[in-house]
């Protein structure tokens, strides 16, 4: 005989949307909580004015100016003999980097790489994770609503906004195929279809779920020729790097082992895949460290590039293939992740260099199209910052505490005129 109390009380429950103001206020509270926890210092470094590094910079600038004035006075009379006036005084960069696009307070904005010329593209307050199309003409992004979230697309000026995916529960950032013909994304809803990978066309006409396995798929990258998708899946027990054809056929596990592998990224020539792997002895249900590895695109010849002394994650190749940049989380005893730094190294692991200092909380990052610069979210100062691939030229280009997520850098070599 059934139990009416149990039966009635166990009836399926629907999620209930709370008041929007409550939801937004709570989110702000949580952001503050996370910001405080992320900062190891009481005061962010750049708010202590004047600080020693600023003084050093000013002193160095003053010395340079005086030196330049003396040299100019000496050399000016000799200028015609020293300078060949038939050529420009310096080389013009071959590629001029395009505009950045980012989400601030749920609004998508674009700006020049120096932070100037900002344009507000959406104003819903619920738009995130913008990504330029390869031709720099359109932007894909996540629009969330009370019913979940979906992938949307708009033109570079914010016009013609259309929804191109079905509504999902936990839609992850869109990834354009190299030709711009498709957008792929993961939906990590915790319902039956957890971790499905979907592929849609920019007009929204074709919406295909490309993974048939129900659980634990997380899309990371397209191959440069657009033929394959690289993703993480735990269908074989632990998380491994998988590739499949862009239609979902021929899924192949490239890292069949008992350790966990994440974050596959194809090299620009498509021959190698960088990824990160659990390192050391698992404890407390997690790996003690991670290291960056590369392997051939068929999974052969795996090579460890970093020593596993940190949590090295998210390897990303520079567009010219010369460097692999990654993010390193440094742990401190009892405080979890204390410092997050950006590093770069040659694809064979040599020439490793830290690009940001220990006081900068460098979160998500992206390469500039000309491979000279990285843009990242600076969680210490809450803004967007850039730094050169050689570690010089650190500067903040947008200082807005509401910046959310990774900025994306338009490929300016194909930037539309006007």
């Amino acid at each position, binding site marked *: 005989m059934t139990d009416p109390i149990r039966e009635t009380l166990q009836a399926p429950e629907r999620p209930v949307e709370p008041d929007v103001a409550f939801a937004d206020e709570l989110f702000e509270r949580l952001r503050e909580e996370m910001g405080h926890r992320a900062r190891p210092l009481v005061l962010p470094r750049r708010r202590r004015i004047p600080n020693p590094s600023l003084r050093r910079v000013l002193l160095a600038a003053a010395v340079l100016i005086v030196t330049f004035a003396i040299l100019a006075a000496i050399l000016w009379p000799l200028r015609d003999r020293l300078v060949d006036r038939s050529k420009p005084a310096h080389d013009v960069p071959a590629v001029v980097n395009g505009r950045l696009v980012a989400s601030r307070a749920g609004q998508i904005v674009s700006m020049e790489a120096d932070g100037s010329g900002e344009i507000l593209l959406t104003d819903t307050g619920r738009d995130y994770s913008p990504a330029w199309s390869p031709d720099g003409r359109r932007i894909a992004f996540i629009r969330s609503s009370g019913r979940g979230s979906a992938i949307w697309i708009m033109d570079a000026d914010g016009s013609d906004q259309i929804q191109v995916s079905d509504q999902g529960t936990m839609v992850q950032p869109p990834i354009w195929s190299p030709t711009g013909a498709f957008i792929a994304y993961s939906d990590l*809803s915790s319902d039956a279809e957890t971790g499905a990978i979907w592929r849609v066309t920019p007009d929204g006409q074709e919406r295909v779920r490309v993974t048939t396995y129900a659980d634990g798929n997380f899309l990371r990258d397209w191959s440069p020729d657009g033929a394959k998708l690289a993703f993480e899946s735990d269908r074989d027990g632990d998380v491994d790097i998988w590739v499949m054809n862009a239609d979902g056929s021929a899924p192949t596990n490239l890292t069949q082992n008992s350790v966990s592998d994440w974050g596959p990224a194809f090299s620009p020539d498509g021959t190698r895949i960088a990824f990160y792997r659990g390192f050391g002895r698992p404890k407390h249900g997690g790996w003690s460290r991670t290291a960056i590895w590369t392997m051939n695109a068929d999974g052969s010849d795996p090579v460890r590039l970093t020593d596993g002394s940190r949590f090295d994650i998210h390897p990303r190749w520079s567009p010219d293939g010369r460097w692999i940049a990654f993010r390193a989380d440094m742990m401190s005893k009892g405080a979890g992740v204390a410092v997050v730094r950006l590093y770069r190294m040659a694809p064979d692991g040599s020439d490793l260099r830290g690009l940001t200092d220990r006081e900068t909380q460098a979160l998500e990052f992206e390469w500039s199209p000309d491979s000279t610069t990285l843009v990242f979210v600076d969680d210490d100062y809450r803004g967007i910052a850039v730094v050169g691939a050689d570690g010089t030229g650190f500067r903040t280009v947008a200082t807005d505490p509401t910046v959310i997520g990774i900025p994306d850098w338009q490929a300016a070599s194909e930037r539309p005129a006007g």
Partner: protein
Amino acid sequence: MARTADTAIWFRETLEDESAFRAWYDGALPRVYGYLLHRCGGQRSVAEDLTQEAFVELVRSRRSFDGRSDPMTWVIGIARHKLADHFRRLAREERKRLRVVRGPVANDASTETWAASERRQEIWRAMERLPTMQRAALTLHYMDDLPVSAVAAELGKSEAAIGSLLARGRETLRRELPTLNEVDDD
């Protein structure tokens, strides 16, 4: 599910990437809020307070998430702790004869949003009249399907005490709701 360390790292990254976190939050919030609203008799202000406590706790304790459960399961677990704390606070108030929150049909949300059926609402009206600890035991045992030992752990009581609370709560519901007379103890 095989994910453990991987889920932990994924979720840690999700929390650090505010875009991903917002997307996850927007999906998780209605579930947590709905979970709590259904268990505190539709009292919106109580559900909001407990939802806030749960999410703040999640953020503060995110380093301890080991990935052995789905993040949604984890946050619901935190919400359940907060609900249990709420019941215990109410019980303390009751002992002091300060029944300031509890009352018949005290919900301030519309019936449609939290009570799926008339019968459910009828049972809730009756449960609102139960002593808090009986209501807490019935809620966690039946709505969350927790075994008696887990209910005991959540509410800080012995298993025998929970068994007694459940028996008395069911007896009261049977008495107050004639339609439940066919109840068969399992």
